[in-house]
């Protein structure tokens, strides 16, 4: 019971707005000392040491580093501009190029905020200038920006792999088809829109030579594609561990930045400092979650949760539905990192007891989180776009725009729920 009270108090305090890592750690210390005694925390250094020795999690800073390098080299801008010109002359072309670039950015950076902001700054003005239906334009950007959650090498999959004890490479592989289905779903939706409501996504006038455009686009798309394929390929073929291939990606990104002529030692230093900040933020949450989970499991709350779920009727489905609903709702308020470190460890033993395939479960969780990032009124993706959109663009416009994409998400999520064997590669 103490554990549940602890979780409730910590959640309430979160809304005060103090850093999540220390709110959880601080509340756990207070509750822990009050009910269980200080000695409980004598194990903290041992737990921290095992995080320090964790070579799987070591992939995170290097993928973050790679993402920030690609972001700072203006890769997003280049890709968006050249592909908009290439596809822009067809109905819906601008939206489709945004989706494709969004998925490419997702595969290379894996950070939601970064790609939504980049596309909001570059794509949105172009689409609006071309008289795109405002909700459609904003919906496309928000939706393709969240693809970073599911398309490997996403940070969330690395964390889930570590927390649930499944190989990160397998999770990356399993995410390929669901991620691809999402992209396909978005593109089909836009194509249909272009056919039945062409006034929603009118074509753009392009005066430049087609051949030159194609060459420019190839020059912008091929190098990052090679990088992404070499990183993912080395993981999938089993040549390299995710951590090793992350280092290849990090070095490769620097080589790319030299290729684009945007390399400088000062720039690398800034990128590295930014990486330190993002990484430390993630690991602070992990340490805070460690303190929390010590109190939580020491007070026997894990068994309470397990008993509750095992006592439910309807086999594993009741558990899956409740777990998904809880994650969806929590995802409105707290970041995926906290959910992965705090909630998933509570759910994993139950999933194992119910004989649920953990890889499948992990993919469901990450797709679910992605949907919650997109869902009004609190989805993160919507806030990021609102932050960079023109002032006269209403929030309700964005809300309206994401609805079709949420439906596509739910459809794909349902497919993965119903056909685990067919849609997950091993």
């Amino acid at each position, binding site marked *: 019971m103490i554990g549940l009270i602890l979780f409730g108090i910590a959640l309430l305090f979160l809304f005060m707005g*103090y*850093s999540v890592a220390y709110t959880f750690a601080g509340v756990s210390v207070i509750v822990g000392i009050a009910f269980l005694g200080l000695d409980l925390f004598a194990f903290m*250094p041992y737990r921290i040491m095992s995080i*320090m020795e964790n070579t799987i999690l070591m992939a995170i800073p290097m993928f973050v580093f790679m993402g920030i390098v690609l972001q700072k080299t203006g890769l997003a801008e280049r890709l968006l501009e050249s592909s908009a010109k290439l596809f822009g002359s067809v109905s819906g072309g601008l939206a489709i190029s945004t989706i494709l670039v969004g998925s490419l950015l997702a595969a290379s950076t894996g950070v939601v905020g970064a790609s939504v902001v980049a596309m909001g700054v570059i794509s949105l003005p172009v689409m609006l200038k071309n008289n795109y239906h405002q909700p459609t334009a904003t919906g496309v950007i928000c939706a393709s920006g969240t693809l970073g959650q599911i398309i490997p090498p996403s940070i969330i999959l690395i964390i889930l792999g570590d927390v649930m004890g499944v190989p990160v490479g397998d999770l990356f592989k399993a995410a390929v088809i669901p991620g691809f289905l999402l992209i396909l779903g978005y593109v089909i939706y836009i194509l249909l829109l272009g056919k039945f409501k062409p006034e929603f996504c009118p074509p753009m006038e392009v005066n430049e030579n087609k051949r030159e455009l194609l060459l420019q686009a190839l020059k912008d798309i091929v190098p990052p594609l090679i990088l992404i394929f070499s990183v993912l390929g080395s993981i999938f073929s089993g040549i390299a561990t995710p951590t090793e291939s992350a280092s290849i990606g990090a070095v490769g990104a620097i080589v790319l930045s030299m290729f684009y002529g945007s390399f400088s030692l000062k720039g690398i230093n800034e990128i590295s400092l930014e990486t*330190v*900040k993002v990484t430390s*933020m993630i*690991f602070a949450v992990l340490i805070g979650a460690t303190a929390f989970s010590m109190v939580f499991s020491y007070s026997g709350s894990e068994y309470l949760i397990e008993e509750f779920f095992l006592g439910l009727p309807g086999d594993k489905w009741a558990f899956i539905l409740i777990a998904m609903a809880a994650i969806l709702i929590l995802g409105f308020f707290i970041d995926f990192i906290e959910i992965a470190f705090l909630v998933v460890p509570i759910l994993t033993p139950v999933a194992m007891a119910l004989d649920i395939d953990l890889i499948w479960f992990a993919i469901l969780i990450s797709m679910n989180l992605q949907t919650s990032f997109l869902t009004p009124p*609190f989805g993160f993706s919507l806030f990021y776009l609102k932050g960079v959109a023109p002032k006269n663009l209403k929030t309700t416009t964005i809300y309206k725009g994401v609805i079709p994409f949420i439906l596509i998400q739910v459809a794909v999520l349902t497919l993965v729920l119903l056909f685990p064997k067919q849609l997950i590669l091993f």
Partner: protein
Amino acid sequence: MQFMLISLKKVIDSVGSICSLIMILMVINVFYNVIARYFFNDVSIGMQELEWHLFAAMFMFGIGYTFKEDGHVRVDIFYDNMSEKNQAIINIIGGLFFALPITIIILYYGVDFSHEAYSMNEDSPDPGGLPYRWIVRAIIPFSSFFLILCIVYVTLNNFNILKNSFKNHQGLLK
């Protein structure tokens, strides 16, 4: 007081720069090991252990630096709309009652934890691994001490914000 704040800031920033350097070294280290292993079939346990030694130092000390930079995630639905004064109050309360206790606990138990390795003269359990395990264990107490410095810095800064907002308030009344 101001002098102390300025020198604290300098110390914290230089630790941040060192972390950023360690991050680059870590990328080079891991990349070197990959190349050495696949192309020259040369595996060094020591070099592999160095990877996580660098990794650990980078993020453990980085946590303090990030604290000073206000880089730790918050649930900011309400926080963003608060006045600067209320934000300062939350940061002071959070720093003193949430961040400080856990850090002191980790420091307290971390000292024993690394001292134990020192007195047993513990080395890496693997042949060819790095000696002096107490050094990497000592990252825990040292980084905790550093984090306490950062908490003190941020708290003092927030007291300043609070003080100024009172002054401005009185200025407005006159």
